């Protein structure tokens, strides 16, 4: 009996106030818009060879573009070298030696210019994160700069 009284009472309370509470979403119309949240992508659509980003293919020369590699080295000195060595030794992130043999050029370009979604989706990067524990930051690298870095990585891997 007591229980049913409580039930009725609480139902009545809910009804009495429910009208107002339920309309919270309708009443509030934020003029400032909503915070952007990353769209949840289908992980099955992720291509681990290509990565995620604007590059489908990257044209590489048969030989090294020396000028481009030099520019890339300059950028890397400011934006990358704090964490990546050119040897195979891990610093904050993995060493760069051999990276152009392990990864496709488009994967490298996508990862440099669009790291966050790839850190969230790429199985190998996720495994790497468990070792390094620092997410590779988006260093605001432009397309030209990224291409230069890739050329510098090729130079580092012995392309002449």
């Amino acid at each position, binding site marked *: *009996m007591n229980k049913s009284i409580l039930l009725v009472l609480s139902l*009545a309370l809910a009804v009495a106030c429910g009208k107002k*509470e339920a*309309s919270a979403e309708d009443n*509030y119309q934020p*003029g*400032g818009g909503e915070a952007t949240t990353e769209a949840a992508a289908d992980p099955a659509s992720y291509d681990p060879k290509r990565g995620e980003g604007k590059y489908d293919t990257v044209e590489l020369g048969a030989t090294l573009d020396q000028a481009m590699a030099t520019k890339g080295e300059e950028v890397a000195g*400011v934006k990358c*070298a704090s964490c990546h060595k050119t040897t195979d030794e891990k610093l904050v992130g993995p060493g760069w030696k051999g990276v152009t043999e392990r990864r496709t050029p488009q994967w490298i370009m996508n990862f440099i210019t669009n790291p966050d979604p790839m850190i969230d989706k790429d199985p190998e990067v996720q495994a790497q994160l468990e070792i390094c524990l620092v997410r590779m930051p988006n260093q*605001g690298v432009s397309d030209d700069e990224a291409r230069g870095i890739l050329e510098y990585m090729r130079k580092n891997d012995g392309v002449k």
Partner: protein
Amino acid sequence: MKNKFVQAILVIALGSALVSSCKPKNSGDAVSGDAAQRVYVAPGKYDEFYNFVSGGFSGQMSVYGLPSGRMMKVVPIFSVDPESGWGFSEETKPMLNTSEGFIPWDDQHHLELSQTNGEVDGRWIFANANNTPRIARVDLKRFKTSEIIELPNSAGNHSSPFITENTEYVVAGTRFGVPGDYDKGDVPINTYKENFKAHISFIKVDKESGKMDLSFQLRLPGVNFDLSHAGKGKSHGWFFFTCYNSEQANTLLEVNASQNDKDFIMAVNWKKAEEYIKAGKGKIEKTKYAHNTWNDETHTGTSVIKDEVLVLDAMAMKDICYLMPCPKSPHGCDVDPTGEYIVGSGKLAALIPVFSFDKMVKAIGKKDYEGDYEGIPVLKYNSVLHGEVQKPGLGPLHTEFDGKGNAYTTFFVSSEVVKWDIKTLKVLDRVPTYYSVGHLMIPGGDSKKPFGKYLVAYNKITKDRYLPTGPELTQSAQLYDISGDKMKLLLDFPTIGEPHYAQAAPADLIRNNGQLKIYDIKKNNHPRVAKGEKETKVVREGNKVHVYMTMVRSHFSPDNIEGIKVGDDVYFHITNLEQDWDVPHGFSIRRAQTAELLIMPGETATLNWKPSKVGIVPFYCTDFCSALHQEMSGYIRVSPAGSNVPISYSLGTNLPASSTK
């Protein structure tokens, strides 16, 4: 029997539950039942408005979201801020320089958003310093103080920083009449009437860069200028200032400056003043004032002391300024969105006089004067008056507008906001405030285009509104919904310092103005930047040591430094190499007699340290930056003065044993 009894109880209980459950108890009848949902902004969602609130005696500006009342940022302006290093880093110290040197504090009263065509444009916000007269410009792409200009010949910079409708000028009227810097200042105080004058500054604002320049000052009788607002629309070209102490009392102002039945609203024809300046009627006077500017590429402030100002004697020019008699020490001076009505709030009056711009222009044309005040024509009250709001409340202070023909005035003594019709002068509604309201703000409420919807009252006293916190209690803001006929209290929220005037703009206007996320390290032209770890080094120049250091998640380069000696003057020039949004790093040194540095991505900042004890001194990053943040640290070896330990530095390799002797 038992059942009937239970049923009766149930009915009573149900009835009273229905009544009491939907009526918030402690906030009284003032809060309507749906207040909570109207201010609720769900996690991850944005507020509708940015609300910029003056920090009063904190010297800073706070930024809130409306309707939630959530505080998002405090922008350091006139007071040092150990949290960000403002006023502590070598680069920011010049921003607080004045003609009398570095000043670590001020009292920040009023804010004004920049406008184009009388509408808020979301580019900059101007702030006044009341104690040491200064005007600051805060860049709203960076939420950073970009410029501070000191005002000569002034004391108590209260009636500022109000702007003309295209941000042509920021004005600043002195609250205290004082002898000008170019007058003889060493005079007996009781010679006030003879020697004290008041100056109003017109600061030109560059259309593109926002850069300020003290264009000219008007020399005026020694009254106290209190508040001001520019004309708009038809009254563009005019500025209006309230003034009190027309008695020119110099002691016990509480009594002696409240003698006259009427003081004045001064109308300034600033376009006319410009003409006189062009015609060479101004006089260059000697003075000293600081003009401090921030450079985003060198990440450094520069202070220049200027020594001249152009002064135009408005008492000698008969057609720049006109006085409109206004009852009882007027405070607020507010111009409605059409530019026709000027509301003067006589803070000791029990009515609100509303003046008509058209009538004023006519009266000036007919020279409808009742006399003059030290050479300034005084117009007849009845010739310029649109009308008076009768019995609105006690102690009117400030008025804002909703763009629908209504005005809203705060009443300090009777603790309320009163809504009235500008044309008919009829009181339409009143709501209590808790307690003793000063300023109020409607988004865009002093512009040509108010956004309406909300009104915020900024209260001087909170007493029992919050949990007690000892003798000093928070001051507060109260949010009202003004979208309907009746004002509705929605929310209380605490503020920093003492809130005076505030501004608000729709969120999109600010967040889509080109918000800066990082400083581009390529454009970093700091003279001691290290662009990459290969440029880091430690250089001794006599007893000065310059450390060129970098920071990135999560280490410093270098992080082992030796060869520092007691008595050295050490400068850490630290560059944050990150180029990612929301990744500042902090820097602190044990027992350094200064604040931390908080360095934005791509920025360089400098901390000065004078070690006085031999030993090993750790330093570390103060802003949690990654999972390895606790590892972001380093050591400095401090040797005795005269020691011959050489300068050495490294990262990731132990120094050779030879260097450790």
